[in-house]
């Protein structure tokens, strides 16, 4: 993963390639256009998710289903 920051969804190829470089995975393969397309889809979903997250949603570090539903 890249550093702890929000990722914009309208990055051009060069900006996207910079993200891959930073992650230690330079995009040099012939499949790079398909990888960029998929990356844009993931970034769009991440943006959607940020919009859906209530401001007061609990912080969490692990997923424990019993603890999550126990109060109910």
């Amino acid at each position, binding site marked *: 993963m890249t550093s702890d920051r929000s990722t914009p969804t309208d990055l051009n190829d060069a900006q996207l390639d910079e993200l*891959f470089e930073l992650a230690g995975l330079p995009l040099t393969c012939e499949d790079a256009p398909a990888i960029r397309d998929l990356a844009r889809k993931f970034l769009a979903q*991440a943006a959607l998710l*940020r919009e*859906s997250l209530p401001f007061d949603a609990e912080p969490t570090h692990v*997923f424990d289903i*019993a603890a999550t539903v126990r109060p*109910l």
Partner: protein
Amino acid sequence: VKQPTIAETGRLLRSGAVTAVQLTETTFQRIDAAASLSAFTTLTRDRAAAAAARADVELRNGIDRGPLHGVPYAVKELIDVAGLATTGQSRLALPPASRDASVVSLLDAAGAILVGKTTTYEFGIEPRPGLDGPFPPARNPHNPDHTTGGSSSGSAAAVAGDLVRIAVGTDTGGSIRGPAVYCGVVGLKPTYGRVPRRGVLPLSPSLDHIGPIAATVAEAAVAFDAIAGHDPDDSASADVDTTPCASSLGNDIAGLRIGYARRWHQDAGEPAIRAALDYAAQALTALGAVVEEVELPDASKFDTVATIILQAEAFALHRETLASHPEAYGKLAYRHLAAGAVLSAADRLHAQRLRRQLTRDLHAQAFTRCDVLLTASVLGTAPRLDDDGRTPNQFRVFPFNVTGHPALALPIGVAANGLPFGMQLISRPFEEALICNLGHAYETQIYQPRARGK
């Protein structure tokens, strides 16, 4: 001739009408004859022969390990078997596993006989079968031009093709339930943490589940009972006392409250499948259950959460080898793993926060009023192997990887193209016995698939 059920096999073994050695030899004959299905990556003939001989000696001497004693089974290629490399269906040169995964140890302790490892989609990440891997993709026993779905593809093909009655799969985003539905068999994704994951190649540890694929719900229940339990070697393993599933089958379902999540699929997928889901809800009413429609949080929110978590965690696991050995990955696997690089730590943490919120919302909306949820599983049938994935089927399986609730997929019909489809039953956490009992009632009283493979 179809294989006997596990219960019938048990009777034959204990009466002396058949031996485990004979049963195992017959299983390998079936597997060899069905090689064109590509259900297996590796066969464990020597290990199986030794285990079968041991089972025969034990049973003759009155040592009875229970309903799986002497019964052949298979495990997905992502699961460690001592002495074999866990390749993830990739070209990565990995050393042989030094010990069996917990699930293999548990099944062996129950006297079951491992006959081999089954095909998967590479590392469980490919959205459709990659055609450039070291093993050919599994073919659907109902029509070999079609996929089995993934990623527990060979496990579903092996059961649907009547090669084994039970196989173990993994499910990070529906990878047990999707192939089970596409192949017309049963798949149980247990509660998160209910089946130990030590020795299983992870894809996304906070979403990964392990469970059985079986010819019937009754057999899935027997297999689940053998592999469920606490394991201190799995940090997510739950230490919870639960009711065994197999002994719960046959309980009366009169008065059971079932929430039908009809709105989750009312405008999606194939009309015949939507109609079959409505029929299933009505049929359960006829069995005495009380069925009412329930509203759930938007399914797409769960899909978004799951996608971000899965892609971020899978990239983190593969980051080093993607950089150092890109040639070891098939094109689709590399593409889907590498693209996760652009997600940030904040994105993953946001997804985990929303996950908790969605889990609470779904649980409150469904399980304060109902005992079991009935939902769609996959709103289409298995695509052709040469399908390019541009018009994918819609799935309703991801939500329960996000929430961790147990989910049972079982067949409810066959489409006009001859391929099966199914439904999903979900219960509160750790109540697998409830959905197995309900599924068993459905498969014995409402719908018995006539053709589970050919």
